[in-house]
């Protein structure tokens, strides 16, 4: 694929405090975090700990993780809103670690998107360029181009009063696009939308990003959002990068127990059991584990096996599960239960076992069924000592 070379304008403050347009050729807008670390004053461990992440030119990178994992802080370090205490951040061939936000040639999307009622949709998109002193002809061209990308051409001369929520979002995107930044940054941009608008907007953002080819870093706590939008997804926890891979690799080969449990909805079943010579014991059943995998865990008495809900198969042998809830969703049925043979107290704290069964009559709630695991289906095996993946 040839990369688009865009003639873009960037701006810096002149001595009088005004923006001066400076024409230049945009180079490779890669983003690199190099051992980037952020420690908040008084905190006992870093909010972001030696983050190393290479984001390719034009790539859509999603940072995801639970609250407090450091994803938002990482984005803000890139934006220049958080100090970098150690390490560095590069955009293309520029070390931006010490640069103020306005000199980084980035655009934060959706930060604020009040639409001005007396101005046309076009002026609503282009007003910041006017402030930056971009000549009218160029402003109009950029607004027209953005409107074309956003399907807003026929709205350009309209007042925004009758725009729907989704259309308003697009005008907000237009504001960022006309600036032609090297990198788009989006920090939970959909968090204030209702569920339906969230889904349609995320599809639109992803499609738009592909067409624009502008490097984008996107932060969300929602792994479904991350998996459906990102070219690659970086999973973080406690300030540490856990894994950065394509969505499918994250799903098929999670590096550790955390990523395995975090990615996927419903989540992967993670069951810890005693190791014997042919596998891992779960109740009265031994989940078969290849010999070479077991060999990697010599010295560990127990291991955690991970089975995605769709990797279970109903059978006459297998893990015995007491079914508590059956939920039919289209052609599939999700069954939720706990390992059989637990006391009522134990059930309360026992991990939920979820199976996604296709194309046959689902089991009844209250019954005990057996799920075949391994035996030709994908099985993930993790060390309990390190939490790391040991299966292939």
């Amino acid at each position, binding site marked *: 694929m040839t990369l688009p070379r865009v003639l873009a304008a960037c701006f810096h403050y002149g001595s009088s*405090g*005004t923006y001066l347009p400076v024409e230049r050729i945009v180079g490779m807008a890669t983003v690199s975090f190099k051992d980037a670390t952020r420690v*908040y*004053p*008084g905190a006992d461990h870093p909010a972001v700990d030696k983050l190393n992440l290479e984001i390719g030119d034009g790539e859509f990178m999603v940072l995801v993780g639970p609250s407090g994992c450091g994803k938002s802080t990482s984005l803000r370090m890139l*934006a220049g*809103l*958080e*100090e970098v205490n150690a390490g560095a951040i590069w955009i293309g061939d520029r070390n931006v670690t010490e640069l*103020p*936000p*306005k000199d980084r040639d980035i655009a934060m999307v959706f*930060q*604020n998107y*009040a*639409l*001005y*009622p*007396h*101005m046309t949709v076009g*002026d609503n998109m282009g*007003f*910041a360029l*006017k*402030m930056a002193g971009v000549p009218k002809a160029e402003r109009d061209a950029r607004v027209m181009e953005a409107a074309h990308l956003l*399907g807003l051409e*026929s*709205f350009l001369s*309209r*007042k*925004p*009063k*009758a*725009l*729907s929520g*989704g*259309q308003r979002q*697009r005008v907000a995107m237009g504001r960022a696009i006309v600036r032609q930044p090297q990198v788009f940054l989006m920090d939970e941009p959909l*968090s*204030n939308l*209702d*569920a*339906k*608008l*969230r*889904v*349609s907007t995320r*599809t*639109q953002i992803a499609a738009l990003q592909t067409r624009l080819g502008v490097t984008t870093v996107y932060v969300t706590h929602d*792994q*479904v959002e991350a*998996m*459906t939008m990102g070219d690659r997804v970086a999973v973080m926890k406690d300030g540490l990068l856990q894994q950065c891979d394509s*969505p*499918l690799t994250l*799903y098929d080969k999670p590096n550790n127990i955390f990523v395995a449990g975090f990615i*996927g*909805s419903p989540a992967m079943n993670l069951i810890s059991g005693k190791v014997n010579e042919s596998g891992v014991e779960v109740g009265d059943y031994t989940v078969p584990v290849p010999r070479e995998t077991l060999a990697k865990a010599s010295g560990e008495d127990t291991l955690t096996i991970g089975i995605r809900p*769709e990797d279970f198969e109903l059978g006459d042998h297998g893990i015995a599960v007491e079914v508590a809830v059956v939920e039919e*969703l289209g052609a599939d049925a999700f069954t939720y239960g706990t390992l059989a043979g637990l006391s009522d107290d134990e059930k309360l704290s026992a991990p939920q076992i979820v199976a996604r069964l296709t194309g046959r009559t689902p089991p009844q709630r209250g019954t005990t069924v057996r799920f075949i695991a391994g035996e030709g289906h994908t099985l993930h095996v993790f060390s309990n000592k390190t939490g790391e993946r040991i299966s292939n």
Partner: protein
Amino acid sequence: MIGMPRILSAKPDSRLIPLPWELPLTDWPTDHLVALPRGISRHVVRFIKVGNDVYAAKEVIQSAAVHEYRMLQELTREDTPAVEPLAVITDRRDVNGEPLMPVLVTRHLDFSLPYRSLFSQGVRPDTVNRLLDAMVVLLARLHLIGFLWLDVSLSNILFRRDAGEFAAYLVDAETAELHPSLSDGQREHDLQIATTNLFGEFSDLEAGQLLDESLDPLALVETITTRYRELWAELTGVEEFPGTELDRIESRVRRLNALGFDVAELDITTSQDGSFVTIQPKVVDAGHHTRRLLRLTGLDVEENQARRLLNDLDTFRFRTDQQSVDEALVAHQWLTQCFEPVVLAVPAHLRGKRDAAQIFHEVLDYRWYASQREQRDVPLLDAAWGYIRDVLEGLPDEAMDSRPLADGTRQLANPFDPSQGFVDDEGEMPEDPWETAAEEEPEPTGVLDIAALRRGKG
């Protein structure tokens, strides 16, 4: 039966319960609503009547509503000018049982002036500069307590008259974050947002023919950065001077007091040989004059009003030759002999035009001009009557400012919602293929469709 809405509130107001929460705010009967001028908003916002009070109600998703409620509570606790949060109404359902957005309820700020109503009356350039000054002071005060606003705009501020100046109040904290302290990058970012938003707002006023022709949006916003940096440097900057100039410590404190700030903690370091001294304010609190006036008289007023009243108190002390008498005693005399008679002279039906401290300030101004004109010392009460007759009678009501926004030739499309522009803007909107496509999206299930992902990216 339809489930009842839940009300989250630190100070529950039972009058909120019977309101028609089962209706979207856009459909509320107008007898519950008040058409007050306000800024533009991306959410549905209405002013609602609750007994004799007016509250602002905003429809917003739950997490945002609760977040903003907490942020506003923090600001109230920190004594930073912001609207007071009252409640979050959740679990709303319409008559068909369909869920409705939660509503955040805040108290309407009496005597507050949204920028759009100020501008619709025609604003002098120096008034605009005062508004910007007030905004810059508010932003600096927020930054001092670690409050990152992220949506600084005139629409998100209410102004109150403050003697000859304005005081700014925060009204929207939806995007805000509270940090132990802010980095330079964070403050710069807020400043950049302020500049961009204000440029947009001034341009919008210009497009709506509400901005005086002599005012240029770009020139207006260029001053914001300069003003903010100057104020921030004074509030937090390090100052170094020779050890022989120790009076510069006192000067710095006085300059900060003059700006309306108290120094609660000043960091002073001396070089080994004592030849150089470095000072830096560590904790500064706004409201220097407000606090002093409150302590002396119990009057709780804006900062510049307090400054003016304190000046008059000092003059009173001097005129009555009581320099050696305890200040609190003199303050009590001033309150009963000067302030209260003036305020009581105002007939009840005129009291909604200005708050008491503002009236007193304006009477002092009136007296000064009258004395100049008549070449004599006009007594305070005479001045008060003259002011009421010549000035106050003709002023619009500002306790609850409900003057129409436009100049009368153009009507708002919806008197309760300025975000919808004017009635004569235009009619039908064109087809939008993206909207049609979005409508066809399936209802979100929350389940990760891994098969679709494999098809798409495999």
